[in-house]
């Protein structure tokens, strides 16, 4: 049996979490959901997912703060998601470390699925 792809979704919007869960149904994937930065960080530590979908603007720890707290990604590929298109100048160091930045709403959700599939 192929190893399952572990996916961690950290987002405060219930529909987004639900959408990801539905998108990655099936045995191929194992989806972990977190509704805020802190829980997300904890899950990241424990489950060591293969990829992390991280929302930028959340109550409590925001996306950047989670990255900072985690420090070492432990081999996970990180995609940040946000409607936020503001000034990313001061986030340059993180932008370089992560693997992608998704604009919400997603243009084509299938592309995301393809990317995840391509991880393994």
């Amino acid at each position: 049996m192929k190893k399952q792809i572990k996916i961690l979704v950290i987002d405060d919007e219930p529909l987004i979490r639900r959408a990801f869960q539905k998108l990655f149904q099936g045995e191929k994937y194992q989806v972990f959901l977190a509704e805020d930065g802190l829980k997300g960080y904890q899950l990241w530590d424990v489950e060591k997912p293969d990829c992390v979908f991280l929302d930028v603007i959340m109550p409590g720890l925001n996306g950047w703060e989670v990255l900072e707290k985690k420090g070492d990604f432990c081999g996970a590929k990180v995609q940040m998601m946000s409607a936020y298109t503001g000034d990313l100048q001061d986030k340059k160091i993180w932008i370089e470390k992560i693997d992608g930045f998704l604009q919400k709403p997603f243009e084509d959700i299938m592309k995301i699925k393809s990317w995840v599939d391509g991880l393994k």
Partner: protein
Amino acid sequence: MRFESSLVWVIELSDKIPLIPWDSSSRPPLVLVIRGNSTSVYIKAVSSLKPDVIMTESDVVDITTVIENIQSQSLIRSKKRSRERSITQRNKELQTLARDLEKMVEERTLWIESSNREQKELIKMERLFVQFLIEMSIKASQEEVLLSIRDQFRKLQIAQEVFLLQGKKLILFSKSDKQEFNLSDSIWNTQDVESLSENVSRKLAKILARPVGRLFVFPLPQFESETLSGVIVEKVSTKPIVEADYSLIKKYVQALGLSIQRIKLEESNRISALRWEKVFDGALDPVAIITENYDVIRSNKSFDQVSGKSKCYEIWGQLTQPCQDCPMINSAAKSEVAKSDKIFQVMRNSVTNDQSTEQKIYLHRYVDVTETRQAHIRFIQNEKLSSIGQIAEQMAHEIYNPLAGIIALVQILLMDSDLVDSTRQDLEEIGKAAVRAQKVIENLQDFVREESDLTISNLDEIVDKTLPLLKMKWRSYRLDLKLDSARGLIKVQPQLISQVVYNLIQNACQAMASGQTLSIRTNIVGQFAQLIVEDQGVGIPENIKSSIFKPFFTTKSLGEGTGLGLSLSKQIAERFGGKLFFKSNEASGTQFFLEIPVIEKAN
């Protein structure tokens, strides 16, 4: 007759009578003794000898008695004589007294007369002095005053020359010119006039190259912060100079001093008044002094001068009645008044005392605050926009997320191939609705964002983003939309152009009745990207056509519009090198043209 001093004189008609001693102080009495029975004739004859006593022989009983008789009679006579003498004496005394009294009266009369003359002389001098004072009171300069006193002195022969001393300068005025001499040092050191004179005499004689008479120096009252000054009076006289001379000169010089003070005060007043005039006239803002009834009493150069008009609102406001919001109406200290296309802050000060019963007078100052008002409103608008911006950002996140969630989930649901057609369609509609909602938020954010950098954009894009924001307005009308300027790129601040488009569409909608057509077209015309917003309204009236781009001009009622929309829109267009203009008539409605220069044409 026989006589001896101590004997009684007897006319010897008888030898019988012996010698009897007599008081020698007077002649002895003459006793006539008549012998026998003399007849009266005989008596008369001998009585012509003037005897003291006439007796007959028969009478001469005792000559002693006779003598005593005579003696007593003689005593009586002597007493009488001494009384007479004393009376005479007293008479003499009285006469002397009378003469003395006469003399006194005479002297007194003389004295009164001379006194009268003196008085007349004094009165004459006083009259001359009063005339001099009157003359002094109308002189306008120090020079005139000094010449006047000198003439007076010469006329009355009180003195010969008058000098003015100012600090170390000695000035001599004559009818045609004045001579100035510099003294080597100040002569105000000593208080004693006498010694001063000697010192000055020598100096003066040297300077004038002539001998000088007696000099009297009088300091003049010091005016404000001037140097000390004084007057020197020169008196040349063959007679010795007395206290009276000095007093007289002093009196005149005192009057002079007062006159000079008056002149200096008048000059000082004149300068102050002139200064005030300069300030008043020089003020950049129009200033007017007006009555309660708006009559202009005095105004400065900046205030319009209109002949024949006297009321403030006639001249400044160019109206036939008081300006709306004039501070006079509400007795306010200041008020904003609109005049032509500007806004003024009219400040009002009371000039008269509140307690006075005269007509009240006020000072009005008209300060053009149009610029500041505009800046202020722009600032407020900016503030509003920025807070809206903050709200929008907040809202965006709150609304965006669920929308994004909806869209994502819908996409995923649509991936299911087992869907019934109707369900599939429903899901698609849900997705579209969510996308539309999301676009609105996006537009709103663009609209309120404070970007200061210029961006490359095009009119079509901007119109596209702006339309949804006004949907509630334009959906009552038929929309005729033809966008064809995408190939012309413009370098602008898109949200500002968006505001212009917003303003034009809003105005167009307000001009029309529902059901009419709102036409929005873009095109490239020459070097410009052009937007035409057209309405089918009744057009802009001729008489306001020239005013619609003026700031604060509005046809809307109070509170509805700031009147800044078109004015700012034009400014924005011009800021990017473009134009905003219109064509309008009653028949076909109004077309607004916005033209922005194209930087390059996209392929």
